[in-house]
């Protein structure tokens, strides 16, 4: 496999250059370029219809490509799809199994596709399907089906796994469990491409991510860098006396003060909390509810996808 080495010695698992995909007149994906490094959890975020599923299915050779270059694990998914699929795992956003197939039968069948076979009993346990081993697919709940599909995507011990809306339909506690398992998979060396529209999921799981909107990438980076870059303002809130705090706006790093009766909201950047706190204490004020609110990925998401004209 000819894999390009990045400067820091990490190999590229996926590289995409100017990917374009059309459905008749609709341009679903255009000018999409990104690289995924081996061993990271790479997020693909964006609102419904942004082109996420199209992109990952092009990468798996499940959809034809209308323009650009893609390389996955050193292979071209257009020419080497069958070989590529031996090396990757895939949980599709929409798929199914025959109604009457049993959980263990599905795992057993998919495991046999791996050269030399592969064990699947441990997946039943870790994905909480031990009790459902002999259940038919039609008898599983939405969340159980979802977990079965993730288990199936891992049954061939893939080098790279695509998870498209993995936690849709999972209850909060199964979501946490799933997150832990995904981290564990990454720690074992598997590269993970995580497609999601849940911002909390992306923020806790992803090492790096791209944000899609209207078929193109509108932002990319680590969750922290995206927040800093696009929603870097920090908000400090506390309750104080109804008047006499006009000096607040002169505190270093403070950009603005909004007062509502006894409630204050101070916005600023970087170390604004430390400065506001110090200034309050030095004037004898010790508000017990002094707290800071940092922007989350969700704020970035809303900011950048609220309209498709958002500048980069």
């Amino acid at each position, binding site marked *: 496999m000819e894999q390009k080495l990045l400067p820091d010695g990490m190999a590229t698992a996926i590289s995409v250059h100017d990917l374009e995909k059309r459905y008749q007149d609709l341009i679903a994906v255009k000018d999409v370029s990104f690289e995924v490094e081996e061993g990271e959890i790479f997020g693909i975020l964006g609102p419904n219809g942004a082109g996420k599923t199209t992109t990952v299915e092009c990468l*798996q050779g499940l959809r034809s490509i209308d323009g650009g270059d893609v390389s996955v694990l050193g292979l071209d998914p257009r020419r080497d799809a*069958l070989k590529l699929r031996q090396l990757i795992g895939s949980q*599709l956003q*929409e*798929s199914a199994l025959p109604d009457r197939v049993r959980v263990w039968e599905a795992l057993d*069948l998919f495991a*046999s*596709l791996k050269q030399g*076979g592969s064990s699947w009993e441990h997946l039943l346990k870790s994905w909480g399907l031990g009790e459902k081993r002999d259940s038919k697919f039609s008898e599983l709940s939405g969340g159980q089906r979802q977990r079965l*599909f993730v288990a199936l995507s891992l049954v061939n011990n893939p080098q790279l796994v695509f998870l498209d809306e993995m936690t849709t339909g999972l209850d909060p506690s199964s979501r946490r469990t799933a997150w832990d398992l995904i981290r564990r998979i990454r720690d074992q060396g598997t590269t993970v491409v995580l497609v999601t529209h849940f911002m909390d999921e992306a923020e806790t799981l992803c090492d790096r991510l791209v944000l899609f909107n209207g078929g193109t990438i509108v932002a990319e980076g680590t969750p922290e860098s995206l927040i800093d870059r696009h929603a870097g303002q920090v908000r400090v809130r506390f309750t104080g006396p109804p008047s006499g705090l006009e000096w607040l706006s002169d505190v270093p790093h403070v950009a603005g003060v909004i007062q509502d009766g006894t409630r204050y909201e101070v916005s600023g950047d970087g170390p604004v909390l430390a400065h506001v706190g110090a200034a309050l204490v030095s004037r004898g004020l010790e508000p017990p509810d002094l707290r800071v609110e940092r922007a989350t990925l969700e704020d970035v998401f809303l900011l950048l996808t609220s309209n498709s004209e958002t500048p980069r």
Partner: protein
Amino acid sequence: MRTLAKMTWLELKLFLREPLTVLFAFALPFTILFVMGGVFGNESDPDVYRNVGAMDYYIPAYIALVVASVGLISLPTHLATNRELGVLKRYRASGLPTTIVATSQIIVTLVIGAVSAVLLVLVGIPVHDVVAANSVPMVLLGFFVSGLVFASLGVLLGAVLPSSRAAQALGVMLWFVMLMIGGAGPPPEVLTGTLGTIGEWTPLRHTIEIMQDGWLDLDPGNSWLIAIATVLLASLLAVRFFRWE
């Protein structure tokens, strides 16, 4: 190979878990025998039935007919349902080749068809006093080729038809038309004109003849060639036009 074995075994189990399909496949031979067998005796008549007794003619023909029902109705419906639900896409994304999907279906058709045929023979021979097969190896070979004909046609239908409803409707229609004009209903000799000509071209006609050739020691015509050509053509088209989604 291991995957093919697992896939085939799984498909067989899935077939047996589908109560209606099973009922259809295994009740059909009896229905045919007692409904149709009641109509004709087993007298030979020089003008029809290739000059053999009616039931001697029909037993091998019915074998072809039951195999046709599995291949033309059950198989395409199952494949098209799997496409409609996204099962085929799931298989594809996991790197399951088309050949395994198709081959497992073909084997299942042969196995179910064989069980159905055995039921038919076991009941048909004593009840209607039918002659025993003249050449068992030729009958087995004829069964195998007939099975391939309908399995490959079934895969082709399942490969291209967009929905399970379409597959079922077209499958039932083809099967019924072939029954009527392909030689499994009225004797082929009484079908004249256009119907007779179309009947000549149905795959059922040729599979009936190759089953009868071995069973009744009749002179093989070009039916074997036509049957094998049908298998090759249908398989090529199925591979060419197979749709996963």
